[in-house]
C-alpha cells in the first residue's frame, strides 16, 4: 500500500531528533535481522540435527563444533536454538497478526461510528483486560488444549482488546479532520474512508503497538511453554527450551544462558524498533 509506511522511511533532512530515531531503528533492525536470519535458516537447515542424540558428547561446553554446547542427550544446542527461534517467531508473528488485524477492525468500526456498539464492545474489552493476560490465555488453553496453534489462538484473542483500544482512539481522533470530511462529502464509501484514508494515518500508533505486542507475545509464549502449557514436543520454542534447561542449570549452564540471551536480544531489538518508530512518528506528526 502506497503511503502506508511513507512517513517513517522517507528521506528527509531533519533535526538531531530525527537522527536519534534512525539510530534506534538501525540497531533494532540489525538485532531483529540476525534473529530473523537464524529463525528462517533454522526452518530448512541446522548444522546438526536438533534431535540427534550422541551419548559420547553429553554436556559439552561451547566449542567450535557446538557453539552453544550440548545438552544431557548430547544434542547440539545451537541447532535447537535455531529450530526454537523459528517456532517462537511463527507463534509471535501469528499472534500479533491476529490481535492487530481483529483489533484494528474493531477499533476502526467503534472509533469511527461510535454509538452503542462502541459502548458495548469497549466494555467487553474492559472486562477481558481486567484478567491478567496470562490467566486469560490459560483459560483458553484449558478449553482447547496445548499445542502450537492453540497457543497462537489463545494469545491472539488475549491481544485483541489492547489493539482495539489504541486503534479506536486513533480512529476517533481522525473522525472530524477536514480531509476525512471531504472524503465523506465526495461520496467515498465507509470502507474506503476507514482503510484507505484513515488507516495510513494511524500507522504512527499501530506500528509501535505491533512491536510491543510482538515482544509481549514472545514473552507470553515463553512463559506458557516454560510452565508446560505452551508448545508440545516435537515442537520446541525458546520458552520450552528454557524449561528444559532449568533441570540442568548446574551441569550445563550454557543451555539456559544461550537460550535466554537469544530471547533477551530479540526483545531488546524489537523494543528498539518500536522506540524508533514512535520517535519518528512523533516527528512527522
Amino acid at each position, binding site marked *: 500500500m502506497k503511503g502506508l509506511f*511513507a512517513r517513517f522511511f522517507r528521506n528527509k533532512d531533519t533535526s538531531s531528533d530525527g537522527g536519534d530515531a534512525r539510530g534506534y531503528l538501525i540497531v533494532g533492525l540489525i538485532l531483529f535481522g540476525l534473529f530473523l536470519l537464524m529463525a528462517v535458516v533454522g526452518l530448512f537447515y541446522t548444522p546438526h540435527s536438533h534431535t540427534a542424540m550422541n551419548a559420547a558428547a553429553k554436556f559439552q561446553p561451547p566449542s567450535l563444533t557446538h557453539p552453544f554446547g550440548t545438552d544431557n542427550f548430547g544434542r547440539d544446542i545451537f541447532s535447537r536454538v535455531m529450530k526454537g527461534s523459528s517456532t517462537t517467531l511463527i507463534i509471535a508473528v501469528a499472534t500479533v497478526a491476529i490481535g492487530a488485524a481483529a483489533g484494528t477492525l474493531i477499533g476502526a468500526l467503534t472509533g469511527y461510528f461510535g454509538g452503542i456498539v462502541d459502548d458495548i464492545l469497549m466494555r467487553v474489552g474492559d472486562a477481558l483486560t481486567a484478567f491478567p493476560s496470562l490467566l486469560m490465555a490459560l483459560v483458553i488453553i484449558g478449553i482447547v488444549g496445548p499445542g502450537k496453534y492453540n497457543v497462537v489462538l489463545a494469545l491472539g484473542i488475549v491481544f485483541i482488546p489492547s489493539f482495539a483500544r489504541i486503534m479506536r482512539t486513533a480512529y476517533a481522533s481522525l473522525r472530524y479532520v477536514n*480531509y476525512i470530511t*471531504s472524503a465523506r462529502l465526495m461520496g467515498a464509501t465507509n470502507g474506503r474512508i476507514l482503510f484507505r484514508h484513515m488507516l495510513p*494515518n494511524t*500507522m504512527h500508533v499501530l506500528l509501535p503497538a505491533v512491536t510491543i505486542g510482538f515482544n509481549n507475545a514472545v514473552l507470553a509464549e515463553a512463559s506458557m511453554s516454560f510452565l508446560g502449557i505452551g508448545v508440545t514436543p516435537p515442537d520446541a520454542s525458546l520458552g520450552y527450551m528454557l524449561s528444559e534447561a532449568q533441570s540442568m542449570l548446574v551441569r550445563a549452564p550454557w543451555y539456559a544462558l544461550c537460550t535466554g540471551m537469544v530471547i533477551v536480544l530479540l526483545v531488546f531489538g524489537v523494543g528498539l524498533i518500536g522506540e524508533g518508530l514512535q520517535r519518528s512518528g512523533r516527528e512527522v506528526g
Partner: protein
Amino acid sequence: MSERFITPDSDPALLKKLQITEEMKRDMVLQVQHVSGGYYKRALMKKNRTYKEVIHDVSFEIRRGEILGLVGESGTGKTTLAKMLLGMMEPEEGRIIHYTRRPQVVFQDPYTSLNPAYDVEWNIEEPLRIFGKYSEKERKERVREMLRRVELTEDHLKAMPDELSGGQRQRVSIAAALIRRPRLVIADEPVSALDVTIQAQILKLLRELRAELDLSYLFVSHDLNVVYQLCDSVMVMKRGRIVEQGPVEEVFEHPKEAYTKQLLEAN
C-alpha cells in the same frame, strides 16, 4: 434524499412540484428558502433530547457566476449554515435547492485539508477515483490540467503535503475541490490562515478560476476586507439570522443595520 434538500438527482415528481423553470435552471445555482436548523443534544430517550436552534429562517440565493460573501462574528452559525448547504446536516424547516451538481468545499485550515499520508497527486486524484467514471489515463490528465490551473507545476505532484507551504497546500485543496467540476464552491474562511501576500494570491486565483470554470462561490469569512475585495454581494449574519444583504458596495458603504456598522468599525 429528503424534501428539504433538493438536488438535480431528487425525485422528478418533487422537482416538478417545485415548479422549477428552465430559466431558473439556467440562472440559479442555489436557493435557500426559510431554512432553520440546529443541534440535538443526545439523551437516553429520544423524546428527552434537547434542541438548540442555531439558524433562524435564513433565505438567500446564489446566481450563476456570483460570489456571495457571508460575514459575521464567530459562533454566529456561519459554519453550521455551510454544513447544511453541503448536506452534512438536515434543516429542521425550509428548503435548500441545489440546481447544479454536488457543491465542493475548501476549508480554512490548509494543514488538515489534505491527507498527510499521500502525495499531492493522490490527494487531487482521489475525488475522481471515488467518482469512478474515469480511466486512469483520463484521471492523470485532469490532475495535471487542474494543477496548471492552480499555478503549481508537475514537480509538486510527488510532494507530500507536509513539504508544502500553507499557500501551496491551499492551492492543492482548491485543485482537489475543483477536479470534479462543481459549479458551486463553498469556501469556509479559505484564506484566513494565510499571511496577507499569500491571501492576495489565493483571492486572485479564486477570481480567475471563477471566470475559467464558470464557478459560483459562497465565501464564508469574518474578514470584511477580503470579502470586499472578492465578493459581488454579501450577507451579514448575526446570531443565526441574516440581518442585512445586498451588493457589496451598498452594504459596506451605506450599512443600514447597527450590527453591520459595528462589524465594519471593528475591522
